[in-house]
């Protein structure tokens, strides 16, 4: 049912989709993928922008972005990088001389500019490439999975993203292969007024293992940009995937991200969600435990300052018996920052022996900050152990005095307390250099 009027900013998306379809013809996109793109454009034309009445949009207003939506450019391209030295300096700095220790895929604005797998992974038969390439070269692996967890009709932004889709990552780890080195994906936005909508698919076959780090960064510039990406992750039976998504956009970027994960029998997913950048962030992570004995461990943190706004929505879906999920989301806010954590544990009928845990901890550093916490349980089986907890507090004066009494200045004491608050989540992030950088980022933010 379309309620789109000619004045709605959503109108801009129609021509984008058409243009994207034309361009896909020239970039040799796999025929099946082009068909999907057209279908997404069709779905898009039936949807309107999310409304405030929608429970998932009541607390996050993308109004400012929607005003400038029509002016965004979804096709800004940068020339392909010959090697890492052609990458933006900020990205190079993050790689921190470890380019040789990981497979690398770098997206700059609307296109992947560097795809560089690693000889070790190549030898192991692991596929690492851009999603665009995968539509041509890995149709058999990709086509049945792409869009099977993240549906175009989820909302307007998702349909729009699927119709203008550019870039993204494809990783495939064959049966029984334990990928020896990590895959790193970087997203960089070069300036204002960009619209970037990459889609990533990761397949870890039965008994395989992999580690992936996805980092998003840009400089703060004048004028809004939108990043509307989607990630679909498939963890096979007895497989293990560690995936960290780190969002550190410049303060002009609106981030809308969807994550969908499916874990099969006795598989294990370690998911890390870190959000420190951007103007406004809206992220949805759905974790399906779809085989007996599947496990999902979700850890995340948000640290907001100035007028930053973070909204994280998670679903732990226990579809089969004997599954475990454990979620911990930490949030620290200063200045006028705002956060919304909206999480739900769903236990399907028959999913007995479920063990599910959900915790949300909030630390407020200013009386202008605001945190909403909405944990929830929907349980349709009886032999379960489901617990959730949410707390909200401030830096306790006793803790401060304890440290200050030992000679630490107030600022130092507060920094220590905030660092200690985040540390349990940071510890779980792969790669020491990334952990150290995050600690530095937190320190810088505490100021």
């Amino acid at each position: 049912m379309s309620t789109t009027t000619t004045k709605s900013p959503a109108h801009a998306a129609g021509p984008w989709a058409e243009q994207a379809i034309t361009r896909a013809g020239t970039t040799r996109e796999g025929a099946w993928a082009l068909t999907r793109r057209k279908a997404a454009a069709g779905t898009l034309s039936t949807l309107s922008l999310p409304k405030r009445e929608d429970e998932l949009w009541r607390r996050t207003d993308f109004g400012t972005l929607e005003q400038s939506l029509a002016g965004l450019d979804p096709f800004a391209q940068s020339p392909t990088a010959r090697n890492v030295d052609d990458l933006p300096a900020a990205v190079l700095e993050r790689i921190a001389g470890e380019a040789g220790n990981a497979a690398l895929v770098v997206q700059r604005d609307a296109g992947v500019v560097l795809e560089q797998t690693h000889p070790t992974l190549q030898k192991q038969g692991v596929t690492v490439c851009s999603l665009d390439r995968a539509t041509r070269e890995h149709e058999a692996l990709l086509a049945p999975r792409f869009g099977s967890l993240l549906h175009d009709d989820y909302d307007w932004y998702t349909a729009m993203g699927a119709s203008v889709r550019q870039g993204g990552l494809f990783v495939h780890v064959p049966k029984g292969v334990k990928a020896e080195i990590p895959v790193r994906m970087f997203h960089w936005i070069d300036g204002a007024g960009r619209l970037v909508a990459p889609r990533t698919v990761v397949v870890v076959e039965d008994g395989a293992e992999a580690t992936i780090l996805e980092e998003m960064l840009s400089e703060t510039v004048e004028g809004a940009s939108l990043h509307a990406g989607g990630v679909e992750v498939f963890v096979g039976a007895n497989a293990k995937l560690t995936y960290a998504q780190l969002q550190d956009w410049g303060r002009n970027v609106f981030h809308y991200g969807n994550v969908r994960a499916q874990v099969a029998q006795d598989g294990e997913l370690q998911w890390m969600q870190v959000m420190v950048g951007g103007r406004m962030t809206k992220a949805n992570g759905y974790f399906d435990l779809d085989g007996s004995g599947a496990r999902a461990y979700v850890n995340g943190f948000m640290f907001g300052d100035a007028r930053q706004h973070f909204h994280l929505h998670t679903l732990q879906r226990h579809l089969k018996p004997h599954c475990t999920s454990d979620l911990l989301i930490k949030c620290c806010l200063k200045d006028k920052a705002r956060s919304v954590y909206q999480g739900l544990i769903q236990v399907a009928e028959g999913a007995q022996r479920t063990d599910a845990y959900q915790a949300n901890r909030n630390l407020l550093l200013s009386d202008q900050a605001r945190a909403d916490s909405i944990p929830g349980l929907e349980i349709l089986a009886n032999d379960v152990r489901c617990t959730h907890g949410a707390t909200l507090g401030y830096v306790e004066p006793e803790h401060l005095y304890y440290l200050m009494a030992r000679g630490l200045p107030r600022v130092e004491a507060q920094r220590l307390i905030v660092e200690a608050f985040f540390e349990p989540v940071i510890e779980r992030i792969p790669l020491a250099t990334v952990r150290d950088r995050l600690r530095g980022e937190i320190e810088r933010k505490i100021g």
Partner: protein
Amino acid sequence: MSTEAEIDVRDGYAEKYGFHDTEQHVFKSRKGLDRDIVQQISKLKGEPEWMLEYRLKALDLFESKPMPTWGGDVAAIDFQDIYYYVKPTSEEAKSWEDVPEDMKRTFDKLGIPEAEQKFLAGVGAQYDSEVVYHKIKESLEKQGVIFLSMDQGLKDHPELVKQYFGTVIPSSDNKFAALNSAVWSGGSFIYVPKGVQVDVPLQAYFRINTKDMGQFERTLIIVDEDAYVHYVEGCTAPIHSSDSLHSAVVEIVVKKGGRCRYTTIQNWSNNVYNLVTKRAVAYANATMEWVDGNLGSKLTMKYPAIYMMEPGAHGEVLSIAFAGKGQHQDAGAKAVHCAPNTSSTIISKSISKDGGRAGYRGLVKVMKGAVDCRSTVNCDALILDEHSRSDTYPYMEIEEDKVTIGHEATVSKIGDEQLFYLMARGIPEDEAAAMIVSGFIEPIVKELPMEYAVEMNRLIQLQMEGSVG
């Protein structure tokens, strides 16, 4: 005790509460809702002009507001297929002897006069749309305590009613509050003067008798400075083939240093939609406590609220929800901290069995400037079989940093070890399960006056009968 597997969870309700009297009323409005009906109700009651205007305005609001899209399924309610006003007697009886014989029988069966003599400070009994009996102890009356039906309150204390009516819950609050504001009838009006401690409970009893009837009682309680009152309400209805609607509004004002406890044992039959708005405002150092037991009804959507307006105010909600076959208990609580140094505690226990759905939906809100607030929310749910469902939706909206807020919830089944422990001591399985459930809700039941605790435990036993096949 029965051991059959397929037994209606509300087994026993039919004999104890499910009877209905032949309809004998002095007036019954036609079915449906429009301006004429509202005008008719107001005219029959001989109300002041402002109340009629208030009702008509509320009717417009009701019509303009959409149905809630969350919570339970209310789509089946046909607002035009309901009798909005059924007047059972020509006037309120002052002595039990004057209550018409059939109604007396009803309340006798439910044990009302007995309870009054034994341990109550006052009793009100509402039958369909009107309060048919009202009585308060003389000693309290002398101290200036007012305990009247809302209609009588409006007649006898128009200024007091006008000052507070609709101030805690405006008719624009939600669709069902608007509906109640348009067609309200009956309910209690209570005023406790400064410093007066009413140390035994006041009770009201609500009964729906007529088929396809809507009951819209309206209660207003004002507890003046340093005063105390405990108000208890109970509700039952006969089992009809079609559904009834109960949509009450309860407003409470607790002034500085006052304390009010409001206890509900809701035991409507399984064909009643129970959509109720309850809210209290608590001023400096005042305490408001809601004890809310929901065992009956087809669907209950009820979230007793406390707005803590001034420093030192304290709010407490103890909630029990038990959903059996065909029941959905969407119970919960709201604590809104509007001032510094306020505290709230919410404890919820929900039980679901035989395909029932019970849950907690709540809100803890801390407004800007309300520093040094504390709030604790604890929700525990027990699911007794694999077809039943439990939901927990606790909302937390915090706009202040110097606060301590905690929420915890667990969902579990009856532990096998617990069952075996009791069964090894010769207790049959169903009794053992009932004992465990009683133990589960014990922290709340112990807050009830003794007679009600006994009643509550009995109701739980009833719900539990035949629970183990």
